[in-house]
């Protein structure tokens, strides 16, 4: 099973990198650029075949290491391989 974890900044947390990307896109001539937020994508191959157990384990990974829940949200997607 493969887990894809998407980590994004919480609403209300300033994202200066996202802002810099927005400015750079405008400088390249792209119009209509609104807010840009930057995040992280982490892919994990799991030996676990039970979906429930895998979800619980990845949830635990997110809380303990992958995300800083003070400033970040996480979203888990599991795909059978």
């Amino acid at each position, binding site marked *: 099973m493969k887990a894809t974890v998407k980590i994004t900044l919480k609403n209300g947390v*300033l994202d200066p990198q996202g802002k*810099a990307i927005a400015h750079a896109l405008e400088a390249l001539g792209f119009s209509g650029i609104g807010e840009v937020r930057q995040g992280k994508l982490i892919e994990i191959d799991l030996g676990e075949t039970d979906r429930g157990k895998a979800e619980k384990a990845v949830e635990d990974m997110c809380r303990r290491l992958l995300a800083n829940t003070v400033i970040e949200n996480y979203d888990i997607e599991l795909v059978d391989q």
Partner: protein
Amino acid sequence: MKANVIVFPGSNCDRDVAVALEQTTGTPPAMVWHGETSVPDCDLIVLPGGFSYGDYLRSGAMAAHVPVMRDVVKRARAGTPVLGICNGFQILIEAGLLPGALMRNASLRFICRDVHLRIERNDTAFARCYDRNSPIRVPIAHHDGNYFASEDVLDELEDRQRVAFRYCSNDGTVIDAANPNGSQRNIAGIYNETFTVLGLMPHPERLIDPALGGEDGVAMFRSLVETLH
């Protein structure tokens, strides 16, 4: 005073802080490698500055979970004083010993220069030799020092007077223009609930000798020696 300095792969201020400690205490600290499972009995634990694990994932996130940190957290919770400087502050936050987060500097730039700090309280083991009315000048050197916490946490830090230092102008006024990195409420360092754990972004260990450009960092190490003997 018996001090332990924890050394992670990528620490780069471990030697500076060891020199500062030896100069003030007369005894060199024990340097403890990150892979150890415990730290020797001591009066003080220091987490030095640097870029542990290349700042992978988030600054301090990897170091916070290495074997030796389990013992550091246990000892900190039992009351052993812990000082985290720069990357050490980031590690203390990631290990859950201090609240909040240290985000990318608002300017997105790595900032390496002297700043002025207002001493918020001088009745702790770390700051008793400082004068509350005279701001100190110490260097910062970081990319991720933008202190963030929810309004509730910030209010609690203020109510319990847990803010240790704030960025200020050279006359001690806390103003936006003196905030180098976008930190909320100009926070440069905070204490835990019992004032035994201090995390700060500036580097007091880098200004301990006139030959280095100043001595405003000395009082922190002298405070520790006077408190912990």
